[in-house]
């Protein structure tokens, strides 16, 4: 198939300068203004009000159209601003800080559809979708059928040739964002009745080209969270498929294209959702500092400060892991599938638990409907679909499991293996271009992120507990390698044992630890006072141990107190809590 996205000119050119990326996020923050301003049409009050009505925030959608958000989903070579996942995550995180519904309901759905086309579309198809998105139109990513969940290989919707040789659509899709109002859709359909993984295709369709008489839109699906997002359904009855719709021009590549292209969204979505926790943390802190209790405020209590510090550490952990995974798409694209499944299975539960714990901190106040609470309650609802939406935890673990024994034998126990280039661990620094064509179905048993842990540990100086952590996680990798290489055949299918699934969680844990440690080891010389101290990385690793059930200890005071101090400093200065630490009006 032809590709309109030209091969990257290579390492020397790198992606667009970081200042361009910074400029976009700053411009977006400026457009959103001060969320606390009661007359701001995209402020907190209006955001909550729209959510209560189950509507998208119209002023927010207009704002994003004016900003040109869609351009961030379109590769630069096709006229857009997409140069890498880290940049996209940065922009989308700014949206998620204001309203996760806007993030998912305005934007992420179009990006999910887009990656299919950028990965496997013909040049003409890529240009077609790029033009539609750049004109401000939406694209729906129509994979989901209620009967099959995330198991899209059992898709029931068919696009089989009719008596005249022309393909016809029969069947339905359900719970797809923006299905009714999107001008384009990427539709996942069975194009061959035979079983197997060569029987499906994506179809790129313009809704205007379909016969309205053969389409029936289903009623919108109501949801607990992300209430504004318009989840629709569609039923096709003998709907003729326009010629040239099969993505890539060849039928049968659907499963392969999905597994390759969704690596990008499996990393990007959790990365965006970090913005939700950012605002949950800010909202909690605002409420807790103004809440008188026991002769002081909630934040005077060490337990409260510890919970806030732990949520902050969870945020840093989630951000560091997704950032390294996002950057590894540029430096180790063949392994991106492994890191994407690890991120998508591990990070959303971390974010969800953090938001939930913050709700406990708010105590009885959380039960009321006044002050900060309605926004916080919305965030607690909105974070729920991050775990199962797009790719569930178990489907990501199922993608890791068949690769585990080979990775143990070849990648971990093998004598040789490349590490990730150092720039992978330097957020914001230039990278080689992102090449969709290099995304692979499996990592081939290679795991350069784990190799970077082992290599870094060998060189680590004993600086304030970091070397001890490095040794601990290397020992965990050794133990995991021994356990994984002993996995018998038959432990990789959907009926795999809980023990086998647990090994994939341990793998994700080692990868997250490597991301944290290597980001510390490769930190820039001119880091600010907080980034120059190991408090953040040690706290993130402590929390990682909690999430993996290594221990149940609260964050030690020596970490919690400086972390809380930094949290309050950023709160007072109007800075985000992620690695970016940038001004925000959220």
């Amino acid at each position, binding site marked *: 198939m032809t590709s309109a996205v030209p091969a990257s000119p290579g390492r020397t050119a790198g992606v667009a300068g970081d200042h361009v990326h910074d400029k976009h996020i700053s411009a977006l923050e400026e457009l959103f203004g001060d969320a606390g301003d009661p007359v701001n049409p995209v402020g907190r009050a209006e955001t909550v009000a729209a959510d209560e009505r189950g509507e998208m925030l119209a002023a927010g959608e207009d704002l994003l159209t004016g900003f040109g958000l869609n351009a961030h989903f379109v590769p630069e070579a096709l006229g857009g601003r997409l140069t890498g996942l880290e940049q996209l995550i940065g922009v989308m995180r700014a949206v998620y800080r204001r309203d996760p519904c806007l993030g998912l309901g305005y934007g992420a759905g179009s990006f999910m559809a887009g990656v299919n086309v950028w990965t496997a579309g013909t040049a003409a198809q890529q240009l077609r979708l790029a033009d539609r998105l750049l004109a401000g139109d939406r694209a729906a990513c129509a994979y989901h059928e209620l009967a099959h969940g995330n198991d899209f*290989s059992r898709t029931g919707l068919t696009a089989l040739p009719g008596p005249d040789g022309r393909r016809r659509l029969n069947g339905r899709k359900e719970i797809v964002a923006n299905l009714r109002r999107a001008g384009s859709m990427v539709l996942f359909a069975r194009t061959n009745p*035979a*079983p*197997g*993984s*060569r029987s499906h295709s994506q179809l790129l369709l313009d809704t205007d080209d379909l016969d309205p008489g053969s389409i029936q839109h289903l009623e919108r699906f109501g949801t607990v969270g992300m209430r504004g997002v318009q989840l629709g359904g569609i039923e096709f009855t003998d709907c003729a498929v326009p010629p040239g719709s099969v993505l890539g021009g060849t039928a049968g590549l659907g*499963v*392969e294209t999905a*597994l390759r292209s969704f690596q990008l969204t499996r990393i990007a979505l959790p990365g965006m959702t970090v913005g939700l926790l950012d605002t949950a943390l800010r909202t909690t802190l605002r409420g807790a500092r103004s809440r008188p209790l026991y002769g002081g405020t909630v934040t005077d209590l060490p337990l409260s400060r510890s919970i806030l510090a732990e949520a902050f550490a969870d945020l840093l952990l989630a951000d560091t892991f997704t950032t390294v995974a996002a950057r590894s798409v540029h430096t180790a694209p063949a392994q991106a599938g492994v890191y994407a499944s690890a991120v998508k299975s591990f990070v959303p539960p971390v974010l969800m638990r953090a938001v939930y714990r913050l709700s406990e901190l708010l105590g009885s106040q959380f039960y009321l409907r006044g002050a900060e609470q309605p926004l916080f309650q919305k965030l607690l609802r909105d974070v729920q679909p991050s775990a199962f939406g797009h790719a569930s935890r178990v489907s990501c673990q*199922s*993608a890791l*499991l*068949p*690769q585990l*024994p*080979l990775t143990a*034998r*070849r990648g*971990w*126990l*093998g*004598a040789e293996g490349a590490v990730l280039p150092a720039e992978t661990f330097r957020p914001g620094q230039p990278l080689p271009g992102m090449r969709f064509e290099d995304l692979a*179905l*499996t990592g*081939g*048993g290679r795991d350069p992120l784990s190799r970077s842990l*082992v290599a870094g540990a060998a060189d680590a100086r004993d600086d304030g507990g970091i070397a001890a952590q490095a040794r601990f996680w*290397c020992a965990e*990798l*050794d133990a995991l*390698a*021994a356990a994984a*290489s002993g996995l*018998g*055949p*038959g432990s*990789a*299918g*959907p*009926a795999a044992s809980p023990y086998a699934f647990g090994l994939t969680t341990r793998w994700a844990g080692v990868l997250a630890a490597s991301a944290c440690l290597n980001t510390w080891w490769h930190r820039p010389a001119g880091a600010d006072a907080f980034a120059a101290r190991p408090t953040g990385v040690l706290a993130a690793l402590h929390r990682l141990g909690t999430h993996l059930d290594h221990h149940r200890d609260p964050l030690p005071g020596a970490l919690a107190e400086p972390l809380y101090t930094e949290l309050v400093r950023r709160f007072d200065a109007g800075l985000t809590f992620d690695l970016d630490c940038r001004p925000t009006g959220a």
Partner: protein
Amino acid sequence: MSELTARPVPVSVSVSADEVREWLRDRVAAHTGRPVEEIRPDLPLTEYGLDSVYVLGLCAEIEDHYGIEVEPTVMWDNPALDPLAEALVPLITAH
């Protein structure tokens, strides 16, 4: 890290499709927990629950056993053991 684990002894490079197919049948039986006699080489592996990403574990075993690198899609393009064995022979021989 620990020592390199023992690799299977490389098989003869002049392997036949029959040998490869029999080895594959044995592995599919092990993966699916069925007696080897039940694994028919002319039926798609999906019949035994081995499809999509789950068949990739078998692909990894092929790589390790024969010391070759296999594009995972070969498993999808050759959904039954007969054509799969035929497709693998030239790769093994070339190695």
